[in-house]
């Protein structure tokens, strides 16, 4: 737990330092606030490092395994879905995403998965497109 606080602080310090460097070319007036915030964030990260060092021995790792593989699978499929939307359009990608996501997760019986995917897509079409005329991403397919 405390080791990751340390890592978070390091990431934040690098992030703020990059922001300060990037802001150097801005006009004086435009760079004041970003610089103030970045500096504050660096100071706060120092406090976080101090805290993480202090509690280092007191707190043992709880042994809870971070579900990295699942996290990667879930986020990767969402990312693929977003890319698909750009090329195929919203409705066809949504159908593909929902079917494959639920099959991957073994969410329900095959027939239930198909019905849910079709009805979600259909309901969105009815509400967003037909009734409320809300813009929906279009692509090669529907």
């Amino acid at each position, binding site marked *: 737990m405390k080791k990751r606080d340390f890592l978070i602080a390091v990431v*934040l310090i690098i992030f703020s330092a990059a922001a300060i460097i990037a802001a150097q070319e801005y006009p004086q007036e435009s760079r004041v606030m970003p610089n103030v915030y970045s500096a504050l964030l660096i100071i706060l990260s120092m406090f976080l490092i101090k805290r993480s060092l202090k509690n280092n021995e007191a707190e043992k790792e709880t042994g809870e395994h971070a579900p990295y593989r699942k996290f990667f699978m879930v986020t990767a499929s969402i990312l693929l879905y977003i890319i698909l939307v750009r090329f195929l359009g919203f409705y066809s990608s949504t159908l593909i995403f929902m079917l494959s996501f639920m099959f991957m*997760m073994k969410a329900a019986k095959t027939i239930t998965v198909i019905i849910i995917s079709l009805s979600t897509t259909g309901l969105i079409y009815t509400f967003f497109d037909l009734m*409320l005329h809300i813009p929906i991403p279009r692509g090669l397919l529907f």
Partner: protein
Amino acid sequence: MFDHLAIALGYVLTPHSFLVLFLGTAAGLVIGALPGLSSTMGVALAIPLTFGMDPKTGLILLGAIYCSSVYGGSITAILLRTPGTDASIATTFDGFPMTQQGLGGKAIGISTTASFIGGIISTVALLLIAPLLAKIALKFGPPEYFLVAIFGLSIIISVSSNSYLNGLISGVFGLLIATVGMDSFTGYPRFIFNSDSLLDGIPILPALIGLFSLSQAIKIAISQESSIVKKDVSFSDRVLPTLADMSRTWVTMIRSSVIGTIVGIMPGAGTSIASFISYNEARRASKEPESFGKGNPEGVAASEAANNAVTGGSLVPALTLGIPGNAVTAVFIGGLTIHGLIPGPNLFIKYADITYTLILSLFLANIMFFVIGIAFAKYFVKVIKTPTRILAPVICVLSVIGSFAIRNNLFDVGLLFGFGILGYLMERYDFSPAPIVLALILGPMAEAELRRSLILFHGSFVPFFQRPLSLAIIVLIVLSVLFPLYKEIKKSRIRKSG
């Protein structure tokens, strides 16, 4: 005020508005009752739907979801000891013991009535206080708006997280990314990485939907449980409270409603804090405090009246000053701005008929969830068993469509993805995502008003202390910063001595 209310009444009492109200209430109930789906998520996912509606109808929908989702959390809190939203954590203390004693229906009846009374009292407060505050806000100049934004930020950061430091880090991180976009004073683009989509800054709604909806979808997809709710949920006793129940709990309900409303108006403190405070107050005032935690209906009444009373209260600073007190009202402000309604005194002057329609619809939303809750609570508990693996992809799909529809921009869908992952990681590592959203709204306001004030005062800070209104806000800020610090120090002293 009354002529605006009359116009609003004519609008709200149409079959069309009623249908929207009913759908919003029903959806809010389910979202609130399902653990893992929050009020913020419900309102955020509904905003894209409002694009296709006129602003009044859209606000009726958002208001209905807000009110009923806060109430909905109590159903699972009582029956399963799993609060549907944070707001109902204190409800489990006495609600679940009541279920164990076979009084689940009675507990839901009390919670429904308390939520209803809390909601109504706070809406009355909103109706009375907001126009007054709007009048004061008319006298605000840049320095006052700057200080109000700082006040909002300071108090939000101090209470929104378990740890003071973590809250501050989230808040300052939010402030830093809020500087993205064109500097409106010099016209110089900051941190936009050559992307035109970032010229206006980070769009708030995709960020919000990512932090509060997509992150939850990722979370429930990853969690090992196939269904959030495993046990069977049902109850068999009568739901409608008896006169005896009411005479026992009404004082608590009224007291808690007042507490909840006041907590709601204070920026930063939200529904869960309100319910904890009034739960403690109810126990202190009780003649038999030892019965609390063992199934005392007063405990349920206290917690539920207070959390629903926050709804109306929290809209006071949001509508009059544009200061979001919690994450839900931040979403609300996002929803208003989309329709060109900038929070501020103008909502009570130029757009008064829209604003009063919203306030009036809050009354009706409270009545609506009361009726639905009392009559159909038995059937609503069945929906709670929806498997999470079905919910997760549906939330993803709605998040994508929602963040796209705001500007017809696929770039925003990419932002949604980034903020979704950020929100998931933050929650996992004990950083609350709420301060980021509030900073995204308040940061640009604070910077712009500060620079405007400094131009006005020729670069001097002295006038901030010479204007009575701004001095008053400075005092509030100092108090709000010192109080949590004092509490923290006291806590660490107790820890050391104990």
